[in-house]
């Protein structure tokens, strides 16, 4: 059989993958000249921008979601026991409330085949987020690469590979593609983390990240295989359908009879894919609910590693601190967004009917994540480490609405993620700027930043207040209100109270940091910090120990690569301001965003 591929649908990941190959080739074959490094940066940036252009083009066209890599016509005899279903169970085909429902409603009508790659609102939001964040990360890495420590070609190749994965993942609608895309996001990041050779901390971080990630992948795969074994399908929409039917079957008079009816048809479907499973359906169907529960928990655990949710959070601090700042930014935004995209796809799209199994654990994990993350962040003195734990806490806030289990709540999660991405990237951009001056990058290095650097200081303060969720950082406040509203409206008020307390804990360290920015550095101390600095952690970062001119000129120590960071800060400030003043811009894009008003 011949698959017809919709190349427009797959354009963004395709462009990124081609750009990755191009960068690698250029790096290999171009002569070693000074112009090569900026050129590779520009090629990378052009690739990301082109991909973003395709995403925008896909978003601006109206109509049906784009689908490709579909199951061919002859094989689409989906299992159906439609008459047995109560009418409420079936999503309406007319105007679905959210795109997740679109995906789930596929095979029942018979009109839409199961597809592995679907471009809908959900995909577009996540792809756009990943690419926009990618631009900032590329800009930040320009500054990092200016020091010449890191091989440029490899760096950009790996970066583009990660982005490819991050763009492909939200479009994935079958388990195998999901896992592959997730690995594509994760694997290059180990290398990126450890690419700064001769840096012990970076290598340690890379190994830690690698081990944790491999374990989490294994766990996820185990869960995925159980899911497949229990349902006999890998496509998320079919998975959802099979599970819904399982849930619906006991309601039909004569459950044994109905189950007997249903399962041979399931076998009929699976036959086309894997004949191996055929055997298991010859005997009377076993009770699969416990297997499903285990599968759900395993998948949840695997993704919890990715988003650094408690109790799988321990790697975050060391890895963020050891990795170069752009990689930390990438981990905290792109990698995390990919993790959440996968989580939402599996939990809501595929396992929506099993919500009673995964709802309470998700709520518990969310509560633990925000609490532990905030408590750990309280005592940090290192800027990146603090951001690491704070981003763990923020993961908790993003996770919380998922426990409510409806489309609007999912929208709240995504909204928070988008807002969080802008503010967190901004904070990392300023941290990157400061890390060039004070490589140790402790919070005390930020004392008086507002006086040394009247643009970056207030910008960082703004981002921190955004993260804390206080005006003038209205973006963060709106994001928190969105989440609070879902929690209160969805009947998980206890989680709202936990989150309220956590907001206060979080405020403490954000504001303490912000206050440092406006506290004049003690006389002589700002020089002392710079010059006494032992250059262990980051030998590549240009510092200005012998620059006696004073505060204002300290940035001059590393003029090279100064511009991209400033551009990145400017971009994030503008985005965060737009989110603050007109959050509707982004809220309109969200799946399920239209029907929020109750």
């Amino acid at each position, binding site marked *: 059989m011949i698959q017809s591929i919709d190349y427009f649908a797959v354009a963004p990941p395709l462009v990124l993958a081609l750009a990755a190959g191009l960068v690698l080739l250029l790096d290999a074959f171009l002569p070693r000249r000074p112009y090569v490094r900026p050129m590779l940066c520009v090629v990378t940036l052009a690739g990301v921008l082109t991909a973003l252009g395709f995403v925008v083009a896909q978003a601006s066209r109206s109509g049906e979601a784009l689908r490709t890599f579909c199951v061919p016509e002859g094989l689409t005899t989906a299992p159906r026991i439609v008459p047995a279903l109560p009418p409420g169970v079936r999503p309406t085909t007319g105007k679905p409330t959210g795109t997740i429902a679109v995906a789930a409603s596929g095979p029942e009508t018979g009109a839409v085949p199961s597809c592995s790659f679907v471009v809908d609102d959900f995909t577009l939001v996540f792809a756009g987020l990943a690419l926009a964040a990618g631009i900032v990360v590329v800009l930040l890495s320009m500054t990092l690469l200016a020091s010449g420590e890191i091989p440029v070609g490899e760096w950009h190749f790996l970066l583009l590979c990660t982005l490819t994965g991050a763009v492909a993942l939200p479009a994935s609608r079958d388990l195998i593609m999901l896992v592959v895309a997730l690995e594509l996001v994760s694997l290059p990041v180990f290398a990126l983390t450890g690419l700064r050779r001769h840096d012990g901390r970076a290598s340690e971080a890379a190994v830690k990240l690698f081990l944790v990630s491999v374990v989490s992948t294994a766990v996820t795969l185990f869960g995925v295989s159980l899911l497949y074994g229990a349902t006999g399908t890998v496509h998320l929409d079919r998975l959802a359908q099979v599970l819904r039917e399982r849930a619906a079957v006991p309601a039909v008079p004569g459950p044994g009879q109905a189950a007997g009816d249903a399962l041979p048809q399931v076998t009929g479907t699976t036959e086309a894919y894997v004949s191996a499973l055929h055997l298991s359906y010859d005997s009377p169907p076993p009770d699969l609910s416990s297997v499903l529960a285990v599968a759900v928990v395993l998948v949840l655990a695997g993704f919890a590693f990715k988003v650094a949710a408690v109790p799988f959070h321990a790697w975050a601090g060391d890895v963020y601190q050891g990795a170069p700042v752009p990689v930390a930014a990438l981990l905290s935004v792109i990698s995390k967004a990919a993790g959440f995209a996968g989580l939402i796809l599996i939990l809501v799209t595929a396992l929506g009917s099993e919500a009673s199994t995964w709802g309470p654990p998700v709520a518990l994990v969310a509560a633990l994540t925000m609490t532990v993350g905030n408590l750990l962040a309280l005592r940090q003195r290192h800027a990146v480490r603090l951001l690491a734990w704070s981003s763990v806490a923020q993961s908790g806030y993003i996770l919380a609405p998922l426990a409510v289990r409806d489309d609007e709540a999912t929208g709240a999660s995504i909204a928070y993620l988008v807002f969080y991405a802008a503010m967190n990237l901004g904070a990392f951009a300023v941290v990157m700027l400061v890390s060039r001056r004070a490589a140790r990058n402790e919070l005390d290095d930020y004392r008086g930043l507002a*006086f040394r650097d*009247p643009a970056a200081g207030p910008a960082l303060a703004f981002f921190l*207040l955004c993260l804390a969720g*206080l*005006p*003038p950082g*209205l973006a963060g*406040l*709106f994001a928190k*209100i*969105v989440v*609070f*509203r879902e929690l*209160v*409206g969805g009947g998980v*008020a206890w989680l*709202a*109270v936990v989150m*309220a*307390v956590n*907001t*206060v804990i979080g*405020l*403490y360290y954000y*504001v*303490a940091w912000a*206050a440092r920015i*406006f*506290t*004049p550095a003690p*006389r002589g101390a700002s020089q002392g910090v710079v010059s006494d600095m032992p250059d262990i952690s980051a030998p590549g970062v240009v510092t200005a120990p012998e620059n006696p001119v004073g505060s204002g000129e300290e940035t001059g120590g590393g003029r090279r690569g100064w511009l991209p960071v400033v551009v990145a800060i400017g971009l994030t400030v503008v985005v965060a301001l737009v989110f603050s003043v007109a*959050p*509707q811009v982004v*809220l*309109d894009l*969200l799946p399920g*965003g239209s029907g*929020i*008003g*109750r």
Partner: protein
Amino acid sequence: MSWVPVAMLAVPLAGAVALLMPYGRGRLLRAHALTVSGVTFALSLVAAVTYVRGGATGIGLETDLAWVPWLNLRFHLGVDGVSLPLVVLTTLLTFLCFVYLCRGGAGGTDRLPRGRPGPERARALVFTLLLLEVGMVGTFLALDLLLFFVFFEVVLVPMYFVIAIWGGRARRAAATKFILYTLLGSVVLLIGLLFVWAGTGTLDMVSLAAAHGAGMSRPAQILAFVAIGVGLAVKAPMWPLHTWLPAAHTEAPTVGSVLLAGVLLKMGTYGFARIAIPILPEGAAAVAPWLGAFAVIGVIYGCLACLAQRDLKRMIAYSSIGHMGFVLLGFATLTPVGLNAALFGNIAHGLITALLFFVAGAIKERYGTADIPALGGGMLARLPHLASLLTFACFASLGLPGLAGFWGEMLALLGAFDPAPGLSRPLFLLFMVVAGVGTVLTAAYFLVMLSRVTHGRPTETVHAPLLTAAGATGTPEAGEAAQEAREAQEAMVAAERVTEKVTADAEQVVEETMAGGGPPDTTARAGGSGSAGETGSGRGTGGAGSGRTRDVTAHELAAWVPLVALILLFGLWPKALLSLTDPVVHSLLGTP
């Protein structure tokens, strides 16, 4: 759609944003600050006149725009008899704060022309205060629950920085306590507001108030009222949620204290009148006895705490807790009389306490300390005008008939005498008696304070702190004291001679002070009695240069006279305010 409320927010905001541009120092900055706050004040007067001429009923000057439809958040502003006086009070106090800051003369703790590390600091203060004004005015103008919450939060960060940067010695701890405490209150408030939204499906205060709780069951109302009430009570503050207040008021600079006491506390009590009581009547009826009980405990607690205070600013801070107790008692009665009393008390307290903090700040600046024993009495002889103003403000605050403070307390007691039907009358009679005892205690602590500060024979204890700094070197506090002393020296002498050794510095300052005319034996004697804690340093005294402290200056007078006039006006003609609030109170309570 009216432009006035929008302009009242836009002008200070634009003024603040304009300060981000690198221009303007000194005189230009002062002109900028005065113009922006003056225009805002004028706008609020325009709003007041328009509203009163328009019949003074219902919501006036309404603006209703969609802001974030996804959140049902509407940019819905307007004024009525409840919010209008508070809006005018806010803009007036902000304006007066700038007038006070703009006075010339020697370097003070917080005046505009000369800040510590240069003019950036002064600009930052103006910026922060203007941002604060946006939040304060917006809170009173908002007619959408979420918008109210947003403005409620806007205030936090600027006030944090006002305390944390321009505050006294323990400023960092006080500021942190302030922001954490009040944020905890406001997230609880947010949860309460979302409960209301979940129950009724709307966030519009006007329609919610008109519905009088329709659509929400009694348990839901009680839950929401408790959440909203706790959130507002932290801000108000109500005993036992007041503990952030004394530290914040004591450590804040004068303008910070004035705005904290004059306006920020009112945001909490305003919330009761605007949101909690009209929107959740059944919840209010159920919780009112508790509210009343906490209120009168607050009255008594505030008075007793005041009697025990040594620090003037701290005493005024505790007196605020007592006065807010009266305001909350007024709300707890759920009668029109009580609500009118509370709203009147709000305004009166704003005016009187602002004046008290202004005067206390001026005293602290002149004496270098606000410690009552260290002030040493006899102020009426040494600084007759300042002492008279202090006396006037204290009498107004203790509720002397004929001054504004009287009516709020009297009407609150009257309301408690006859609470709303459904509330236990004996209980409220008990509250009334306890609060009555509170008025006596209020008079007691103010009179005790006045007798210790303004009366008696003037004694020279002013220079005591400086010597303490020298005498107690080695302790950490002395280090700090010497640090402060050093700053004072920097203000006096342009040259910066910073040595690492604290002792050397302190001795230097002492020498200088002695050279300035302080008799050595007096200072030596006083050094033993003063504690290191009262070392506000001799900025004011040193700055004056002549050894004599100056009485009230023209700028100070300009800032204070309006307050004095208004206290007299509302004391003698309370109807001016009550006629504004009364119709709205009736409609909020749903009584004829």
